């Protein structure tokens, strides 16, 4: 896939300008940037649902704007942020609609379609929900169903707008695993993500979409070492520091000593802001630590097994409470360890990359 100085926007208003990018087979490109910056607009243009204002998108050498919707449907599948409300369709029905491009004139599904659908359901871990009506599923399950639908379309290119929305941390990480598998099998993935930590981990390259409409293409390492996030999200020093330390990257940066003046991170100041304690949380206080150590910013606690956290705790109907000496406490310094633990739980010991 190739983008030639593409200009995306609505009507005559250009939202994203001058995107030139060559995407290789099996590459994972993630769009990051502030809300309203034009990530979705660019995604829509790449998937062909929005006409480009200028420039072009080439798919396998042919211009996307000149391809028929049928041709596009056989090479590319999409997941949008649009909420769908189909009537009387089960999860399987929705996933199976991804097979329509491969059916005859009447759209009757064959055994091959059944097989691909079952595979996609299994891949997204919703096989057990196949017969549940779509309208009865939770938002996260719906999202996974729509992703399964896109996978069932056996695309060469998978274009997804915020695929992790409505999902909890476990399913997000699972999705990242699936995305990696898909890219290894040769599917090219273009998506937008809100979660920086996931974007940095899974992507081959990041497409930074700025508020003013210009873009930068960088590898995840470059994004961190060049301190690009600060400007991208218009953060002040304090906020940037917190983001970086939340990503568990501050030590890396110190070690590499590549931090530019602007947006430099100093570990000496360790002020903590109680802003990050959410006392309204129904699980609060899950840990017995002082407020200045507490960080709800990266809380996924109730969602993973903490039986072997090494702490002392008691359990009520809201889960674990007041855990003392917890190994996976919600301390911002502890976040990388929490993620590691989560991955161990998911992929088994040593399964983390």
């Amino acid at each position, binding site marked *: 896939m190739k983008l030639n100085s593409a200009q995306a926007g609505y009507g005559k208003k250009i939202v994203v300008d001058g995107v030139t990018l060559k995407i290789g087979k099996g590459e994972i490109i993630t769009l990051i940037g502030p809300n309203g910056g034009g990530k979705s607009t660019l995604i829509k243009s790449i998937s062909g*649902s929005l006409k480009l204002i200028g420039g072009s998108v080439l798919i396998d050498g042919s211009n996307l704007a000149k391809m028929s919707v049928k041709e596009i449907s056989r090479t590319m599948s999409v997941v*949008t942020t*649009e909420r769908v409300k189909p009537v009387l369709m089960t999860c399987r029905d929705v996933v199976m*609609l991804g097979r*329509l*491009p491969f059916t005859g004139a*009447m759209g009757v599904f064959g055994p091959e379609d059944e097989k691909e659908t079952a595979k996609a359901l299994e891949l997204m871990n919703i096989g057990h929900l196949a017969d549940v009506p779509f309208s009865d599923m939770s938002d996260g399950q719906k999202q996974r169903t729509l992703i399964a639908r896109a996978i069932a379309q056996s695309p060469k290119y998978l274009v997804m707008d915020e695929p992790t929305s409505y999902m909890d941390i476990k399913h997000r990480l699972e999705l990242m695993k699936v995305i990696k598998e898909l890219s290894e099998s040769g599917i090219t993935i273009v998506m937008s993500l809100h979660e920086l930590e996931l974007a940095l981990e899974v992507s081959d390259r990041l497409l930074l979409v700025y508020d003013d409409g210009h873009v930068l293409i960088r590898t995840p390492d470059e994004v961190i070492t060049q301190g690009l996030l600060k400007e991208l999200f218009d953060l002040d020093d304090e906020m940037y520091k917190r983001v970086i330390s939340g990503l568990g990257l501050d030590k890396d940066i110190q070690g590499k000593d590549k931090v530019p003046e602007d947006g430099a991170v100093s570990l000496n100041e360790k002020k903590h802001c109680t802003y990050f304690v959410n006392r309204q949380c129904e699980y609060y206080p899950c840990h017995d630590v002082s407020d200045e150590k507490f960080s709800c910013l990266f809380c996924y606690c109730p969602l993973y097994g903490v039986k072997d956290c090494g702490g002392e705790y008691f359990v009520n109907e809201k889960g674990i409470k007041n855990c003392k000496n917890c190994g996976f406490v919600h301390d911002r310094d502890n976040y990388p360890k929490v993620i590691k633990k989560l991955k161990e739980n998911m992929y088994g010991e040593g399964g983390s990359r």
Partner: protein
Amino acid sequence: MERERKIRRIIVFTALMILAMLGLFAGIAIGNVSISFKEALLVLAGQETGKNAAIITDIRLPRAIMTFILGGGLAVSGFLLQTYFANPIAGPYILGISSGAKMAVALMLIFIVGSTGRTSSMMLVMAAFAGAVISTFFIIMISRAVRNMGILLAAGIMIGYICSAITDFLIAFADDSDIVNLHGWSQGSFSGTDMGTVKYAAVIVFTTFILVMLLSKALDAMRLGETYARSVGVNVKACRVLVILFSSVLSACVTAFAGPISFIGIAVPFLVRELLKSSKPIVLVPASFLAGSVFCMFSDLLARQLFAPTELNISAVTSLFGAPVVIYMMIRRRGNHEA
């Protein structure tokens, strides 16, 4: 689930076929002049002639076939409109499309037929089609401006009132001879159908029906909304135009031959969806057609037998059974999601 659905499908289709056969036969055998079932069968087999045979072949048979065809056409038309507006309460009658067709037919009957004295089925259908397309066009314009379904339906009802008002004006200033024609027709009735018009209606409705079936793959994809439909290779714009065209042809045809008939277009597709527990168009379209036929045939039977020899207009009967279904639908919709 899949198995259960297949079984449902078989049961529902078998039941509908049996009911349709029953309806057709009842329409032929039951009437003001009592003709025994045996005799009716003999006439159908072509083994008997005479007065009773004439009643059956010239009056009852065309009427029975016509109700079968137009009832089905109306249900499919409603189904298409519901797909277009993504709203289960849409239908040709409630959106004012039938009334638009009725107004156009009234205009034609009074001004063209009144002055030239000639009329043909083709002219009727063309006029009704023009009227249907014009009201549909208005409805689509309104639906562009407002996204709220309640307002859209209210607008449809208003369009219906405007068209009816104009029709009434026309009637007030028309000659007595025209009014006689117009009045019976504008109430909706299948009486006075002959084999010639049946042939017309059959050709139009069955051709459109086949075209709709060919569109079912695209309609299938549309169930997840336009973006996803496009992503599986559906030309959304063309599909929408065709949907509106076909539904206008069907409702125009019904209105031209039988007058505006209420509620079949809304209630039948809904009931069929619930019965089949599926929203797959390739199953729903034929099922809606059959169910619409059945509903229409039995309504017609009631309309003419309930207070025989006085004939009720068929909308009175279809409203009586259809409106409660629609009310139930709306209540359930509110209960389930934010409407």
